[in-house]
Structure formats: structure tokens, C-alpha cells
């Protein structure tokens, strides 16, 4: 293999699995270290810079970072990254002095944000410090989009939501609420310099089965129902409730029903338990509140009598794997009838922009999604950009933040007559040695063998009685700092300098994970076999040095490295050094710019 180019920003970025997995590339280990040091405000601001809504995401994020965490590969359970984010938000001090300055004199460019959800808000935050005039329109009576209308208060209290939404709005967004956009053409006639569409995926899917039309008044679409609960239009639900669907919306629907007085709540999913779209912890929380989840039961028919819903007939199926894909076939068991008085339909949602005329230069594909450049998020109309769920279909809040940063860069470049694609700033990398003394490192190198800490919950009875009681209480400072210690500091990299190495084997002997091998060079597949411990995880890179004096090369398997620094500690010549990698993800409007 050729020597690894560790100065390409992508190489070490990939080693920081959590940061790589995060759509917004939040520098996770950096803020976890700050939490461990009790620097909550600084930890919060690192998050705020990257993902814009730390308090909200610390409660509601889909957590792509956690399954990626190296701890999963070394000791099973990931660091509770999401809950640590919440620790920073819960315990932060005054952030006023850390916020970017918004100039009083504007730069003359006007930007329209359609929708006041996370994507639009994040675009506003990125653009405002550069002097843009930002006008935001939304049909709801307040900002926040789906964060406000679809996430129930027992998961996301209103004050947390409002704090982070208002922070951005108060930076100088001209918000127009209760404004139903009916025509994109009209919007374009208002002659803004750029438009950002962040209207989400507001249409919940329905099922056209026998009996559907007859029982219409007993069936609600999950997201619409949640929204009417959020705005106080619905305050109770009676009788037996069936929630159809296996995603997070279904989990929110069933738990909300339980709190609004349903006699019984049952979740019925057409697929198996493992492949449900809902996050693992959402499923656990629903089940721990006594809500049964019934799997492998696709609905067949709504049963009604005199216009009144009686229940639903479900088919019994089982999954089989065919050509690597799951397929469901009938088991032959008789169909099941489940009695109910009300059905909440949470079987997915889709983008829906009937208000965008199809003859104004914004093209849509066959799935009715706008045709976009995946990097710039620019539509076929040069002035119109998309982000969040309205771009590529339903995702989650962290994707909305990620899209927003990219769209903001594109808008900024376009407004300066630069090319949104060709002129994008590149990623950068800084490496900073962590050596402070003979045996002193600027980070806490020692490996902490603790298991993942459990988060305390509110009293079950109290929380089921009141929809506004938050279920998860979050880590306190002590639990937070303990959990923070579990972070392996994967951003503190093992950097190897060939010309200093005397090949004494000290690093090989001390490495607890057998990551390091000195071996004759070979092709990658061969090399992966040569190592002290075979490198079977092909997702993880091999760090290969240049040729050493004996003709061999140093090969390090990045897969399960604990970043404990023992190789550097035992190295007599400093051929190994622990260096913090700071990956610069281009972004507008960050306080560091």
C-alpha cells in the first residue's frame, strides 16, 4: 500500500467516527471533553455552531453518531453522546458574549425563507451575521416547524424549544407567522435575491383499504393529530386506540394517546420489530409505558357497523430474506381482529408542494421531489434552494441543520456572483500535539472501563398523567461528567513519524488492542491479514507508513484504537505523537469565523 496521506482532512475525519457520522459534523469529542471539564457554555457553543439546536437535539436527535461510536466496537455500548449534548444545554451559562454579531448596516441582499422549521432557522442564523435581510414565512402561529408541531412536550418541553428558536429569530429575522404560502410564483414576484424552501414533509400517508371512507371520522393522520395536540386543539382521546406504523411518529402518537386518556393503546406494525424505523430508545420508552407493539401484521380491512368503527382486521405474515432483501409472506394463520374506537395513522410522510407551480423553472422528479444539486442544494431555478425534509424527503432535525449550512454557503456565494459549486471553500485540518511533559498529555488519555450510564426518568405515574412532564430527566453534572469520561477522544490522533522510528517494538507490545504491526508491505487485502490482529472491518482504514530502515512499514488498524496514547507514551523517540485533529468544516456564520 502507499503511505497514508494523513494531511488530507478526510483521513482523520473518518477516524472520528461520531463526527463523520453526524450530518452536521459536530466535533463530538471536543465538546465532550469540555463537559468533563465543566465548561458547559463552551460545550454548548461548539454544538450551537455545528448543529444549531443543541438543547432540542440533545432530546430528540436521531443520533446517527451513537451506532458509529468506537465504543460499540470495543465494548458494546456507545457513549451517550446525545444525552451529553443535553447536559451542555441544561447546565450552560450566559451565552450572549459568544454569539455572532449581526451588523446594523445590511448588505442589501434580501433572502426569503419559506417555512420556519429547523432548516430555515439554521439558514437564517448562518446568513444574518453577514448582513443579509432575512424574511421568514410560516403558516403556523409560531416558529419551530415540526419541532413544535410534531414532537410532544414530554420529549421536548416548550421552554427548551422556544429558547433556541427565539435566539435565532431575535437575531433579526423578519418572521411572518400564520401566512399560508399558496403560490411560489407570487413569492418569486416579490423579487428576493434568494429563496430557501424549508417547508418539510407535511403530508402524512394514508391507507386506502376497504371501509376507509366509512370510518373517516375515527381515523386521524398521525402528524396532523400530533400538531393539533401541540397547538391545544386536541386535548383528549377516548376509548381503544390503534396506532398504525413503526416509526418515531407512531411512538409519539401512542405515548401521547396514553397521556390524553385512551383506555388502551396498541401499536400495530406491518414489519418485524428489528426493522421498525423508530429509534431503539423510542421503542423501549413506549414499551416501558405499557404499550404493546404487535409486529408482522399488515392491515386488511377497517370493520365498521352503522358508520361506527369496530376494529381492524390484520393479516399474519413473516419475513423471509430474498436476494438480500426482506420480503413478507403470509404465515397461513387466520387473520386477527383487533377492536378499536380510534386509529392514528403513522405510516410515513412525504414532501408535498402543491403551491409550487410547475411552470416557473423549478423541476420535480417522478417522486415529486425537487431536482437539486446534492452539494449546493440549488434547484433548477438558480435563485431557489431547498433543505430539510422538503429537499430529499423525511429525515430528521440534524439533517436539516446540515442542509442549512450548505444552502447558506450556496446562497452567500451566489449573492457575491460566485459559483455555488466551484467556489465552495474546502475542508481543512489542523494537527496539534497534545504532549505537555514526559508523561503528560493535554487530554485525559486514560481509558475508562465504565459501562454506559442510565439516564434517570421522571416518576412514571406523574409523567403519564401530564403530557407536559418531560420523561427523561437528563444526566446531572455528576452523571454527565462520568459518562463524558467514557469518550475515547478519537479526535486525538496517533501520528507516526517514520524517520524517528528505531523499530524497538515498544508500541506493538504495549498496544492493548493489537492495532500496530511492523510488517513487509503488501496490497491492502494481504496486509489486513498480516497484522497482529486481523483487520476485518473494511470500513476502517489502515494507517500505513513510508518504508522504515528494515524495509518494513508500520501498519496501524484504526478500527478499535482506544486513543489511549500508550504507543506514544512508550515510544523512546517520539516517533508516535498524540495530536488533536481539528477538522474545519466550511460554514458561514459561526462565531469562530
Amino acid at each position, binding site marked *: 500500500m502507499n503511505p497514508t496521506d494523513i494531511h488530507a482532512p478526510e483521513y482523520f475525519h473518518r477516524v472520528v467516527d461520531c463526527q463523520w457520522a453526524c450530518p452536521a459534523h459536530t466535533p463530538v469529542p471536543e465538546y465532550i471533553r469540555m463537559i468533563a471539564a465543566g465548561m458547559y457554555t463552551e460545550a454548548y457553543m461548539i454544538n450551537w455552531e455545528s448543529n444549531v439546536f443543541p438543547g432540542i437535539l440533545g432530546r430528540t436527535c436521531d443520533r446517527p453518531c451513537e451506532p458509529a461510536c468506537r465504543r460499540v*466496537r470495543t465494548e458494546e455500548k456507545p457513549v451517550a453522546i446525545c444525552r451529553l449534548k443535553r447536559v451542555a444545554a441544561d447546565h450552560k451559562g450566559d451565552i450572549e458574549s459568544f454569539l455572532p454579531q449581526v451588523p446594523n448596516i445590511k448588505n442589501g441582499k434580501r433572502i426569503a425563507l419559506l417555512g420556519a422549521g429547523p432548516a430555515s432557522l439554521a439558514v437564517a442564523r448562518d446568513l444574518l451575521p453577514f448582513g443579509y435581510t432575512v424574511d421568514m414565512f410560516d403558516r403556523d402561529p409560531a416558529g419551530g416547524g415540526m419541532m413544535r408541531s410534531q414532537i410532544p412536550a414530554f420529549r421536548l418541553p416548550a421552554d427548551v424549544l422556544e429558547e433556541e428558536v427565539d435566539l435565532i429569530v431575535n437575531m433579526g429575522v423578519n418572521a411572518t407567522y400564520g401566512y399560508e404560502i399558496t403560490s411560489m410564483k407570487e413569492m418569486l414576484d416579490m423579487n428576493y435575491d434568494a429563496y430557501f424552501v424549508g417547508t418539510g414533509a407535511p403530508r402524512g400517508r394514508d391507507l386506502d383499504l376497504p371501509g376507509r371512507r366509512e370510518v373517516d371520522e375515527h381515523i386521524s393522520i398521525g402528524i396532523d393529530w400530533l400538531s393539533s395536540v401541540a397547538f391545544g386543539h386536541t386535548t383528549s382521546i377516548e376509548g381503544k386506540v390503534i396506532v398504525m406504523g413503526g416509526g418515531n411518529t407512531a411512538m409519539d402518537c401512542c405515548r401521547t394517546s396514553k397521556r390524553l386518556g385512551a383506555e388502551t393503546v396498541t401499536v400495530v406494525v406491518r414489519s418485524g420489530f428489528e426493522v421498525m424505523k423508530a429509534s431503539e430508545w423510542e421503542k423501549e420508552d413506549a414499551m416501558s409505558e405499557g404499550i404493546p407493539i404487535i409486529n408482522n401484521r399488515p392491515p386488511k380491512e377497517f370493520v365498521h357497523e352503522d358508520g361506527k368503527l369496530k376494529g381492524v382486521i390484520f393479516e399474519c405474515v413473516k419475513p423471509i430474506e430474498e436476494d438480500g432483501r426482506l420480503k413478507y409472506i403470509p404465515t397461513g394463520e387466520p387473520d386477527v381482529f383487533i377492536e378499536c374506537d380510534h386509529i392514528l395513522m403513522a405510516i410515513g410522510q412525504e414532501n408535498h408542494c402543491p403551491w409550487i407551480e410547475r411552470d416557473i423553472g423549478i423541476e420535480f422528479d417522478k417522486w415529486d421531489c425537487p431536482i437539486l444539486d446534492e452539494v449546493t442544494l440549488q434547484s433548477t431555478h438558480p435563485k431557489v434552494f431547498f433543505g430539510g425534509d422538503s429537499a430529499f424527503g423525511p429525515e430528521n432535525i440534524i439533517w436539516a441543520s446540515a442542509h442549512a449550512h450548505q444552502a447558506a454557503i450556496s446562497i452567500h456565494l451566489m449573492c457575491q456572483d460566485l459559483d455555488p459549486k466551484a467556489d465552495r471553500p474546502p475542508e481543512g485540518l489542523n494537527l496539534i500535539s497534545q504532549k505537555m511533559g514526559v508523561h503528560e498529555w493535554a487530554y485525559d488519555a486514560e481509558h475508562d472501563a465504565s459501562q454506559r450510564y442510565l439516564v434517570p426518568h421522571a416518576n412514571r405515574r406523574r409523567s403519564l398523567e401530564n403530557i407536559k412532564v418531560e420523561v427523561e430527566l437528563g444526566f446531572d453534572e455528576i452523571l454527565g461528567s462520568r459518562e463524558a469520561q467514557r469518550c475515547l477522544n478519537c479526535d486525538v490522533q496517533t501520528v507516526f513519524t517514520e524517520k524517528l522510528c528505531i523499530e*524497538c517494538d*515498544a508500541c*506493538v507490545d504495549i498496544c*492493548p488492542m*493489537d492495532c500496530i504491526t511492523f510488517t513487509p508491505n503488501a496490497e491492502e487485502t494481504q496486509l489486513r491479514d498480516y497484522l497482529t490482529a486481523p483487520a476485518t472491518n473494511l470500513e476502517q482504514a489502515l494507517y500505513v507508513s513510508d518504508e522504515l*530502515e528494515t524495509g518494513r512499514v508500520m501498519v496501524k488498524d484504526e478500527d478499535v484504537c482506544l486513543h489511549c496514547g500508550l504507543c506514544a507514551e*512508550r515510544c523512546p523517540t517520539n516517533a508516535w505523537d498524540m495530536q488533536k485533529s481539528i477538522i474545519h468544516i466550511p460554514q458561514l456564520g459561526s462565531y469562530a469565523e
Partner: protein
Amino acid sequence: MTFVAKPKVHHPLLQFNEIGLTRRDYEGAVSTLCAGCGHDSVSAAVAIACNELAIPPHRFAKISGIGCSSKTPSYFLGASHGFNSVHGRMPSVATGANLANHELHCIGVSGDGDSASIGVGQFAHIVRRKVNMLYIVDNNGTYGLTKGQFSATNDRGSTSKKGVPNLYSPIDLVSMALQIGASFVARSFSGDKQQLVPLIKAAIMHKGFAFIDVISPCVMFNNHNGSTKSYQYVREHTASMVDAQLVMPHEQIEIEYAPGTLKEVDMPDGSVLRLRKISETYDPHDRVGALNHVQRAQEQGDVITGLLYVDPIASDIHEVLETPSTPLNQFGEAELCPGSEALTTVNAGFR
């Protein structure tokens, strides 16, 4: 010294040996030697070898004297018996331990100071007595603990870190061991575990006195340009004569042939010692030839390594003394104090 302890967590694919242990179970405390010390590599090699032999750690006794080398038994086989004895007196304690319980595998670790200076007399006599043990010398040619004076194995003309040449001829422990009658003599290099680990395995399973002189550079005081025991010098001047590989009865013999002729020696315990001669002219069963070869190489400034001499049907101290097959420490009071009548008979034998 290292202050961060080696974490207990290990690679998810770490191999278990035949008795359900991993290499990590054969490690000891974290080393307090200087970073990069060759001795740490020797300790790691011992741990790897014992793991591969699948002998439970508590079936080993590790004995040492004084010096950097003699600290190392703390850093391997944490769950075994150990005795860190008096300077140069490891052989006496090892002899006693082996006489008391010949069922323990005895590993003695010493250094060039401990064995070639203060303990050179003890060294000579333990070789003579054929104690069934592995005697390792971590040989760095310097007194590291007292800041780098020349030791007795330092070559004449080799310089100190400050450039002062050594005026005296070296004691070559390999030549001494060959001459006095050791039945297993090898030399290796701490930076070459591929050679060292199989040698340690073969030496542990060898019945008789097994000696391995391991050149183990001192990174602090004897790893400079004027040294003949530096990583660089040894790598440039080393020549392996015979590679040894011990194949245990439960192991498959892997077919991997490199140049050289292969000879297999059946061991009494059912294992097979495979010797691959790299030099055609070298015969590892010829004691006098081996001695000649070693001396000649020494004169030319070359370091010859590998299994230099082995007598596969050697005897040990227990055979010489005709001790009973039950280890002496397992005799009870009845056998050890057979009563006044027996005493009278014994006494009568001396009249």
C-alpha cells in the same frame, strides 16, 4: 516510566489458547523501565511464548537477581510464582526452587551485570548442574540502572554515549555456556520476536539447562553510533544460523519453507523441534563446532543468532541426583521424618 495503565480491554478477535486464556492473561504489571527498552520486548515475547504453549501461568516460577533485567519478571506472567532475589544470586534460588518442585517451569531472568559480573560464578555453576530451566540474559552491554557504565559483556572498542572507548575484552556468556555444558544455547535479539518467541518456547520445553542470550538494547545509554549493542548495529551485523520452531503435539505443522535445510527432532514430551539451518556449514548438534563458529563471528564483529546448540536427549539435575519422581515439596512428615530407626540405619551407613 509509564503512568497510564494498560487498559484491560482487548481486541474483540483476540485468540484464546487451548486452556481458554488469551495472551493478555500472561501479562504482568505495567513496565516501569524506560520507554523503548529492549527488555520490555523480551517480556512481551515470554508472555506470547507461554500463551502459545498453553501452560497455566501458575505453573511457572520466575526468578531474577538485581538490575533492569531482573525487574522484568514483574512485567510478565502476573499470576505465577516469583522471586526477585539478591544480586547475582538468581542461580542459587532457581536451583533451590527447581529442586523443591521440578514440576514448575522455571524461568530465570538476569542481565549482563547480574550474570557476567557479580554473578559470573553462580552462572558457571548452574550451567554445570544442569538445572532444568530457561535462563534468559537481557544483554545490553551497559549498567543502565547506574547511568550507563560499561558492563562485562561490552565489546572492546565499543564506546560510551559520550564517546569513551571500552578498554577490556568482553565475557561471552554464550561461549561460556557452550563450554561448560549447557544442553540448549541460543542467542537472539529483542527486536526480532519472530525468532525469539519460538526459541523461548523450545527452551521452556527443553529438558535440561536452556540458555538464551538476548541482545536487548538500552535506549538510554547504549543505543548510539559507537555501540555494538544498538538496534541499528545488531540489525546490520546479525546473521541467523538456525531457526527453531517448536511444534506442540496438538499443533499442525504448517508448511512454509524458506531456503535452508530442515531437520526435525522429536522431543521427549511428544512435541517436535524443527530446526531450519540457514547456514549449510552449521551443525547445531556439534558443541565444539558451535563454539568455534561463535568465537570466529565475534572476532569479525558479527552477531550470530538462532539456536546455536541443542542436545535433544539431555539430562537434568534430578536425573543426575536420582531424585524421586514426586516433587520434594510434596512429601509429608512421614516421608521426611521416617523415625529414629531409619536415622540409625542412615547413620550406620556413614560409619
